[in-house]
């Protein structure tokens, strides 16, 4: 296992964790752009653009792109988040160059108007699909309540209105401003031929014109709120809760992962024993999400409407008790063994390592090996966990609940 990195003359960086014992490799183009870099007029453009990358280039039609990926047996996809857009593929080592050729090509898409108009339908379908399934768009809503107009609260999908009104020239402008080689990097993991990779990327991306790209990262001032949204046709009641968490630069983030495991893992956590094991809730869990300058501790609870108020009170009681009395050494050790096993299990697939290598580079321009992560987790103490609870209380949160209930009279 060894880490390699290189930078092209135009600023495009290439990072890789090379592992000669792997059978395959994962390759990805990571673009530092997402919903937080949009304004209202173009809400959802990052994600729409991600779709458009597959709709053809100067050298390839949309059908060529799909066919060429399939011909090399690639397992490939792309995703867009609040702050990045990632195009990735897993392939066998003999297809490294063919795969780079494709990924680099689609990072310079044609953005033709007729493709834009057709793909708009697919995006609108995707929005409608999510609107029909839990949490019915409320993940965006709770962010809006908590972070208000902060860019991190922007919706990745956009709305039916913003996508409906979007024009292709707006997307072309956004693309020109954001997909500069200084704002894109290539990550790889697994059986990578690194020297060849640098050459292959340089041949295809070395001519991309560099352009300085920035990102507004204002400090996140959160406030709290509570909102009930009635949805008669829903069967279950859903509660989504957001509290501040450590950001991606914050050393507390490992302790926050351990804290989430203790309080809100899917199995064996305090929420599990309080709500899921007794059958009071279908699911109840707490997760940590880290972004540039902002972090989130996100609670998700689904249950029968009749139990929702009582479950909400129990949830808040779990958080209050943790803040008042802390967690135990036994819980800490159990959580650590669980998280460490997950790190090791997840590291076996090059594709997973790709996201780890790419994510660390995206957020901190650093490389962290599996051994680094395990050592850092091992070093987390009870004091560290308690410090997270003290600095970012889970009870200081915004809540949205959606479901059949028309009133929600909680004491908590």
């Amino acid at each position: 296992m060894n880490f390699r990195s290189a930078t092209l003359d135009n600023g495009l960086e290439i990072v890789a964790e090379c592992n000669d014992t792997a059978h395959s490799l994962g390759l990805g183009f990571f673009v530092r752009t997402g919903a937080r870099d949009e304004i209202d007029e173009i809400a959802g453009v990052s994600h729409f653009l991600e779709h458009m990358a597959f709709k053809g280039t100067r050298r390839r039609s949309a059908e060529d792109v799909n066919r060429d990926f399939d011909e090399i047996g690639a397992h490939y996809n792309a995703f867009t988040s609040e702050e990045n857009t990632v195009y990735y593929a897993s392939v066998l080592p003999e297809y490294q160059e063919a795969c780079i050729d494709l990924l680099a090509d689609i990072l310079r898409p044609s953005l033709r108007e007729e493709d834009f108009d057709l793909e708009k339908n697919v995006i609108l379908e995707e929005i409608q699909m999510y609107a029909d399934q839990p949490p019915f768009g409320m993940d965006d809503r709770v962010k809006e309540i908590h972070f208000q107009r902060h860019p991190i609260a922007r919706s990745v999908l956009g709305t039916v209105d913003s996508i409906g009104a979007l024009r292709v020239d707006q997307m072309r402008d956004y693309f020109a401003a954001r997909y500069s080689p200084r704002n894109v990097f290539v990550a790889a993991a697994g059986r990578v031929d690194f020297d060849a990779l640098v050459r292959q990327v340089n041949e295809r991306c070395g001519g991309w014109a560099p352009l300085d790209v920035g990102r507004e990262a204002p400090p996140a001032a959160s406030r709290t709120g509570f909102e009930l949204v009635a949805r008669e046709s829903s069967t279950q009641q859903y509660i989504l809760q957001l509290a501040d968490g450590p950001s991606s630069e914050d050393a507390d983030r490992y302790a926050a992962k351990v804290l989430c495991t203790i309080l809100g893992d899917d199995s064996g956590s305090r929420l599990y024993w309080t709500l899921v094991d007794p059958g009071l809730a279908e699911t109840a869990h707490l997760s940590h999400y880290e972004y540039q300058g902002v972090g989130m501790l996100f609670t998700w609870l689904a249950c029968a409407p009749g139990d929702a108020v009582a479950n909400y009170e129990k949830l808040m009681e779990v958080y209050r008790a943790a803040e008042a009395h802390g967690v135990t050494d036994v819980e800490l050790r159990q959580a650590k063994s669980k998280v460490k096993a997950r790190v090791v299990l997840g590291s076996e697939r090059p594709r997973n390592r790709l996201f780890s290598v790419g994510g660390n580079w995206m957020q901190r321009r650093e490389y962290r090996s599996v051994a680094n992560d395990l050592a850092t987790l091992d070093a987390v103490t009870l004091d560290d966990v308690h410090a997270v609870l003290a600095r970012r209380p889970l009870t200081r949160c915004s809540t949205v609940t959606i479901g059949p209930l028309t009133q929600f009279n909680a004491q908590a």
Partner: protein
Amino acid sequence: MAEPAPSAESAAFTLLTPCGCSNDPPDRLGLAGMLCDLTLRGAGPRDSRALIDDLENLGVERGESVGISQTSFSGATLADNLHDALTIYADIVQRPRLPSDQLEAARLVCLQEIRGVEDEPAQKLMDELRRRAYPDPWGRASHGAEAGVMAAAIDDVRRMWTRFYRPNGAILGIAGKVDWESLVDHVETHFGAWKTVEPPASAQETPVDASPHIDFEGNQCHIGIAFPSVPYRDENYLQAWAAVGVLSGGMSSRLFTEVREKRGLCYSISASLHTQLSRARVLCYAGTTVERAQETLDVTFAELLRLRQGVEQAELERLKARIKSGLIMQQESTSARSGSIARDWYHLGRVRSLDELGAMVDALTAQSINQYLDEHPPADFTFATLGPQPLALPAAA
């Protein structure tokens, strides 16, 4: 069965017990699910809390699921913890406490799952499609029905455990960093005394008669189409699987190209070959807004009919490339491998190595697939739609 992978740090297991939702008594639909939940609420020397805590301390990433014919207990952890984890699972299947004071909690967990599906239209549609496409009990959804879960008593649960959690028909598949000799000793010690039970007579099949449309309030209409195919153990399985791969494997496949890429009709579209031991169906899904639903159904159905005309060599070559890289990548996950090993044994009574499977894929030709399609053209379609209004179903149905 175990497949050692010396370079892995982990080991994974899949333990299949011959207790599926097809074994649920008709008035206790969901019983196998309740039993599965209750087996984890204390077993052998451990009560509910100790059992989960010990598995967590061993770092076991676990999952349980009830299928049509089996309950699957699977887990993966650091290789050194495998034996300790298996010791606990030996208790879970052979000595569950099935505590009556936890019955209500298990019942509630199962009811939550049933209610949860009501909010997941795509899953609900596919449950309904399977129920219509297979004769009962083979199309059942594992979560059962509210009435069955409500009616279940602790004696029903215990009776089901006594009859269906048995070593004859149980399969343990393991992959990862394991030492075969010591593993066999360990499994012998902990599972060797498990008493066999005479398997019950096979189930009576009853045709299901249900209207294709299910009313559902929402923005989208969900469309399901099924047709019969051949099961995993059939000599033609790979031909059938490849034909479905041409329909829906990769983004250059026919359904994705025709329905989504060329016409922009939907976001989700797929087809897969769903196999049981003795029967199989191809299941197609598309989800789209109401205005585009009829066209989506018509275009999707036309592609199923077009399959009768055969597949092209170029389509097959792409499919082979995908399958082969998929097989190689499967070696990189001990969990995926342990599951495949156990399922192979269930369907074939032996395990196919990845090399053998690779050779079989190499041997596929457009001619062999087309011959299969000539003899088994897609026909006898079953439809299910879920949405605000019914659609016009093709006459060929």
